[in-house]
């Protein structure tokens, strides 16, 4: 157990948190994240609009996965937590596909206040 000496008091830092997870190579992760950002900015100039949007959101999802797994240390968490987070994402997707037919059926004229 580690100890910090401060103002004549020794404060014991909890070991449970220390031993809970390791540390990935953070600098490497940052470089990958910044490279992905540069790629997402470039694809708009190179590919057609549809492909550009698909690639831009694919890189965004990749960046998000890198942050969650490495910076938030989700890869060190028990599997049950993956399921909990996946359930949240499923709820959001259910909302999207559940509402999609209603939203696309609205015409701009209907959207105007009377």
């Amino acid at each position, binding site marked *: 157990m580690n100890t910090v000496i401060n103002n004549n008091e020794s404060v014991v830092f909890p070991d449970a948190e220390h031993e809970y997870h390791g540390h990935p190579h953070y600098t490497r992760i940052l470089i990958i994240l910044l490279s992905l950002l540069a790629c997402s900015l470039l694809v708009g100039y190179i590919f057609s609009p549809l492909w550009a949007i698909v690639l831009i959101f694919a890189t965004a999802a990749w960046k998000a996965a890198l*942050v969650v797994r490495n910076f*938030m240390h989700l890869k060190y968490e028990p599997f049950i937590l993956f399921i909990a987070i996946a359930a949240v994402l499923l*709820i959001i997707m259910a909302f999207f596909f559940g*509402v999609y037919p209603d939203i696309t059926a609205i015409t701009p004229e209907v959207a105007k206040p009377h």
Partner: protein
Amino acid sequence: MSTKQQHLTLSENKIPEGRLGLWILIAGELVIFGGLIMSYLLHRLRYPQWSEMAAHTSTFIGALNTVVLLCSSYTVVRAHEAAQKLDVAKATRWMTCTVLGGLIFLIDKSVEYTHEIQEGFTFTSPSLQHSGDYVNSLFWSYYYIMTGLHSLHVIAGMVVMIIIMVQIKKGKNLHRVELAGMYWHMVDLIWIFLFPLLYIAK
């Protein structure tokens, strides 16, 4: 010399309770922002003319803010690493960098908001509504709700970070550096999706 002992308790699933609490908070925040983002996406697909409105947002400032948030996420994990090694001075320095990152983000956002408001694009965009363009006015409502709510989370993260910095300087609650970091990463995570939606997909 007295000894204060701070015990971390583990939940039934062997997750430290502080982390578990944070994950529950993050899941709740994901529902809020996920709902907003999905709702925006639905309308964006319905109204292709929103691309004209998105063209008024500054990709440069958006990209700059993304770099700032990604770098501040890096500095906060380094603070966490330093806190684990009980290097309070280093942890405080990295956390100060994170708070500065948040400050730069807010300054950039203020500059961007100023330009947009000067162009007449506000939360309700009266100029667009007067010309009967309610659909494009809705884009700006989404824009200000999503980026405004996100900025409020940045401010909350900065306040939390400052409080924890004060605590760790007294040698207390070093484990909270990681918890503050997790919250900050969530703020970064939300921006990762807001940036392409509002700034790149034009």
